[in-house]
């Protein structure tokens, strides 16, 4: 049993302090997994942040057959937060590198289209998410699971234990809110 599954069990059995321990563990695990993957890749390769979260989940939680659905909730909540921090740290880290605009670019892609996203885009998104967290925590939870853990809205709904319609509404609002606070234009399609 990994530390993470042990803590998930503690959370399920009602130990409130266990939840605090989950985030650093998941964070370290994601960093470790990322570093491990990057070591196998050629320089400049990209990793899908959300795929990383899912792989961590498969490795750490799913193998343990006694897991309940609750485990997924806590795991993905921690993982989306951890991934958000990792992306922001990396963006800040690279922004401190002064050698030219080319190097400030982080490559972000999705399955449909490759896009070039600057570190500023990542940091702007993070600021907008933080603003939303203060204004509307429920909508922000949906946005984090969607954006940083890569869950479908149906999975987000199941994860948060709420109706799909509610989740869709929260996402509609969260998306508009975030879009409103992102810089005009945003990343350009390639």
């Amino acid at each position: 049993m990994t530390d993470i599954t042990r803590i998930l069990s503690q959370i399920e059995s009602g130990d409130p302090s266990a939840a605090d321990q989950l985030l650093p563990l998941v964070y370290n695990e994601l960093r470790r997994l990322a570093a491990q993957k990057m070591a196998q890749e050629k320089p400049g390769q990209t990793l899908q942040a959300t795929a990383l979260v899912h792989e961590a989940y498969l490795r750490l939680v799913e193998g343990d057959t006694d897991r309940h659905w609750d485990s997924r909730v806590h795991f993905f909540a921690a993982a989306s937060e951890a991934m958000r921090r990792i992306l922001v740290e990396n963006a800040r880290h690279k922004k401190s590198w002064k050698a030219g605009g080319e190097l400030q670019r982080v490559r972000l892609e999705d399955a449909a289209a490759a896009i070039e996203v600057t570190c500023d885009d990542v940091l702007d998104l993070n600021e907008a998410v933080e603003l939303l967290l203060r204004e509307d925590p429920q909508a922000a939870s949906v946005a984090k699971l969607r954006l940083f853990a890569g869950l479908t809205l149906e999975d987000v709904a199941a994860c948060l234990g709420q109706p799909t319609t509610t989740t869709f509404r929260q996402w509609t609002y969260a998306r508009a809110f975030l879009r409103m606070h992102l810089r005009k234009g945003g990343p350009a399609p390639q």
Partner: protein
Amino acid sequence: MSSHAPEAKQIFLAAVEQCAPDQWRQFVDEATRGDEALRQQVDALLDAHRETNQLLDGTGLLATVAQASLTERPGTQIGPYKLVQEIGEGGMGMVYMAAQKEPVRRKVALKIIKPGMDTREVIARFAAEKQALAIMDHPNIAKVHDAGTTESGRPYFVMELVNGVTITQYCDDNNLWTPTDPGTINIIEPAAEANQLPAGIGSNIFGACDERNAIHIDLYEFQLSGQGELSYRLLDTVADRPRSYTYINDSGAFGYATDNGTTQSVRLYRPDQGSLTVHESPSGTYADVRTRIRINDSNDFLYTLDGIPYLYRESENRSYRLYDLADNYTKNVLFKSSAGDVNPPYSFVSSVVSDDNVSGAPVDDPFDTIGGLGFVLTPVPKQ
């Protein structure tokens, strides 16, 4: 914005769900009842709703989590140093030859933490390695000139550049490879197998450790064919493995052994290529080295037993497990020494003590590194 946010949200969602886009204006007019601030908020949300954004509309972020292409490379200027060429790669760091112009013109070796390895834990280990090298002053240990952080935020340190033949080249040239196993160098013949504490083991190095707060380097004796012909420098210390022993002998050969529980491997350091595993043996071969370190000219000694650090109080003829110490002084010294503090206000006087009369202590606990860093002492065999 905040005061109206919940209301703006409700009107925005109602508009999106109940009306076609061409009816939004009328719907919002009615719903906001002439409240201009509220109206502006709802309009902004609706405008944003219409616009696409690839960050938000994809299937999730696909990001470079560790961007290896952003590493320093030859030509990069790091402080006063310009990277010339890559000369080595270790577990944690990359080593470059670099040119320094100010204040002196010289070539140096610059070691930078590897991309993707810059987690807090690795950075701490890296700092411990730098610290271990920095406090040593010995002809067989590379000097650390400088340290800092690159603009990309990764720590580096600068060492003297050692020019010379690699140990593998030396072995090639002197036909030191055993014919049966090309990967084995026959210069490595642990003296411990003869059940002797080698005379004069690393005395020079312990001299270098004297009063320099060094608890990091430990010694082991190798028999070296063609003694006296080599003058190698220790370029690397073992800060990253809890049970490792760094070796250097009077002839300048150096390497380290790691103990993964079942086998121990000895690695010799190749200044230009990183390290190379050259010898493996079943566990236990190296267990017969006896070393204690005297603290501050006192009658207190540090030692480890099966990897567990202990303090022996001669005055009480009693051993304490380090983390059981009522006296926090020694623990603080160790924490400071292993935490990368360049000038701890403490002094360790290291000396080899041949006295075997160390009182027994339990060995059932697994080794735990102190402060998370590589506190490496030579194990004392159970009597």
